[in-house]
């Protein structure tokens, strides 16, 4: 589904990603973990087309298409979704207007007809129920007056509504209490299917107690220095990030071997 090859990216002239290689197949859930400043959020933003980030070299293929040539809205219409670390407030625009606009743009791109008001309302009801959201949220302005947790939950709600092929979760666990974490994770688990994929970007292991990844990658200084199964996350939780850095050279060779 997604193939990242030797990706380099800068922010404000500073090199953040220094050669990322990552393959994500349909039906898989990957987690990218790493300390602050390792490039996790940069990776998420680069993949969804944030213009503040400059790609200096590398390739990204999404469902056989060159992702880096697409603007953010086209990526979304092709099936990419980013749950933001810091969701934006949009006063004066209701969640209903926002979601209906987005949904219909995506449907139009796929050659599907617009949803009727009833279809749209039914969809809202169905997805809101999954997350235990009050339906009245739909008439409120996008994220305005929402708590941190409500904003994160609203991101997952948008994800469920838009049904992307590939969902990126950028630090979705930050600022969530344990109940909200469960609800959000439950939403993601309902979302994950054999025909889509998820990439979870996180600092902490705790989200991965609820969203069990198939693969865990450790990002450090803009490079993936170790990859493994879900047990790698537990190991990181126990030992911290430092122990891996020592075997860095080793790992990159191993990674190459895995890919073959």
């Amino acid at each position: 589904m997604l193939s990242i090859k030797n990706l380099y990216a800068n922010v404000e002239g500073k090199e953040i990603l220094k050669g990322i290689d990552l393959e994500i197949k349909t039906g898989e859930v990957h987690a990218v973990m790493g300390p602050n400043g390792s490039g996790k959020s940069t990776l998420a933003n680069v993949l969804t087309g944030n213009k503040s980030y400059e790609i200096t070299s590398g390739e990204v293929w999404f469902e056989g298409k060159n992702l880096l040539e697409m603007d953010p809205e086209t990526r979304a219409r092709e099936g990419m979704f980013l749950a933001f670390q810091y969701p934006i407030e949009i006063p004066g625009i209701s969640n209903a207007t926002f979601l209906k606009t987005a949904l219909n743009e995506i449907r139009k791109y796929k050659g599907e007809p617009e949803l009727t008001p009833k279809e749209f309302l039914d969809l809202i009801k169905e997805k809101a129920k999954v997350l235990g959201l009050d339906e009245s949220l739909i008439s409120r302005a996008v994220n305005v007056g929402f708590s941190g947790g409500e904003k994160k939950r609203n991101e997952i709600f948008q994800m469920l509504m838009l049904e992307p092929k590939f969902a990126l979760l950028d630090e979705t666990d930050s600022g969530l209490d344990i109940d909200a974490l469960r609800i959000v994770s439950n939403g993601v688990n309902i979302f994950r299917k054999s025909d889509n994929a998820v990439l979870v970007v996180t600092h902490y292991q705790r989200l991965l107690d609820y969203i069990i990844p198939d693969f865990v990658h450790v990002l450090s200084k803009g490079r993936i220095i170790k990859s493994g199964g879900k047990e790698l996350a537990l190991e990181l939780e126990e030992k911290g990030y430092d122990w891996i850095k020592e075997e860095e050279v080793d790992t990159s060779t191993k990674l190459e071997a895995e890919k073959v």
Partner: protein
Amino acid sequence: MVNSKEFYIENFKTFVEKLNGQSKLFLHEIRKDALKQLAEMDFPTNRNEEWKYTNVSPILKQNFVPAVNTSAPDFSKEEINKFLFNDFDYHLLVFVNGIFSEELSEIGALPKGVVVGSLNKTAKDNPQLITAYFNKISKTDNAFNALNTLYAFDGLAAIVPDGKVLEKPIQVLYLNTSRDDLVLSQPRNLIVAGKNSQLSIIANYRGYGEKKYFTNIITEVFVDERAIVDLCKIQNESDKSYHIEKVQAHQKEKSVFNHYNITFGGAIVRNDINSRLDDQNIETHYYGLYLAGGKQHVDNHTFIDHAKPNCMSNELYKGILDDNSRGVFNGKIIVHQDAQKTNAYQQNKTILLSKTAAIDTKPQLEIFADDVKCSHGATVGHLDETSEFYISSRGVPQELAKSMLIRAFANDVIETIKIEPLKEQINHMIFEHLHRVEIVNSEESR
């Protein structure tokens, strides 16, 4: 060609001839004073501090014939309908080039003793209702003010006696246009709200046709004790027109005055919005929104004069400037020595949509009391790229994402308007005026 001042003074003779017997009214004495004033003063230039950023010489390059000295085109009810704000109940008054149109107006039933209609008619029939206020609230600050008073003839008169409440708002359509001559349209409005009274006015300024014209207005507002007045100006004159208005409000104890000032049209626009808070426990709210594109120039000068203690004023002016447009904001607040415990807040925020749009913004706080809370802030910026990215990352085209952010930016001003259908229609005008993609609301799906 004579210069404009001479032209306007010269034309006064024609006006007087047309007045017939009306030159005996008290109004005419005031006009004659204005004639003297105008003769003694010049139109402002950039050398005048109050007009530093607004060059009015294009307005003075041609001589606009006062509307009272020329004929106005006839409009049918169908024709004016497209200029009206709709989907709510209102008393309708229509002024064509500043002159009341009985045929087009639908004032309807009013509470006993309330006068809502033509200033000209009120001056003839009930002068005692207005003599205490007319030209007493507003002083002549400049030649444009003198010019308005010189030809003061008609405009809105809204006189609400003590204790009366108007349930429905008054919508006043000021339709301005040039047909044969280039026209000077000069509405002269007087709003008097008695003790414990309440009224709401929508001042809807519109232009018609391709020719230039010049609208030069004075609006006087008297808000007596515990009265509440909402004055919502929505100005969408033609792109070729010039528009100047001075609003002068005078507030008494425990009164509330809310002024909304929404600007869409006009080549050169200047608003002076002034309030004197001349008693205790007064509240004043100013909300402004200016949307300019092309080569428009929009200048808002506001002045809140805190004369007495325990009053509150709050001002929020926001603007969106595109293309080569230019904005000016000057927010003056004076807190006199007597005016202890004053709360005065002011904010001006502008978004520039192009590299060539610009604004000069200046807060001007003069505080002579020592126990007050005053704050001011001014920001100028662009649409936030992160927000734009957030919206487009959901599949929304960038142009529509920009429209959503414009809508979001204007929201805290629009939200203060109390008439729901009016908000929607103003939102629509924002996108239409800035030539932006419109957001399709999804309210029906609730």
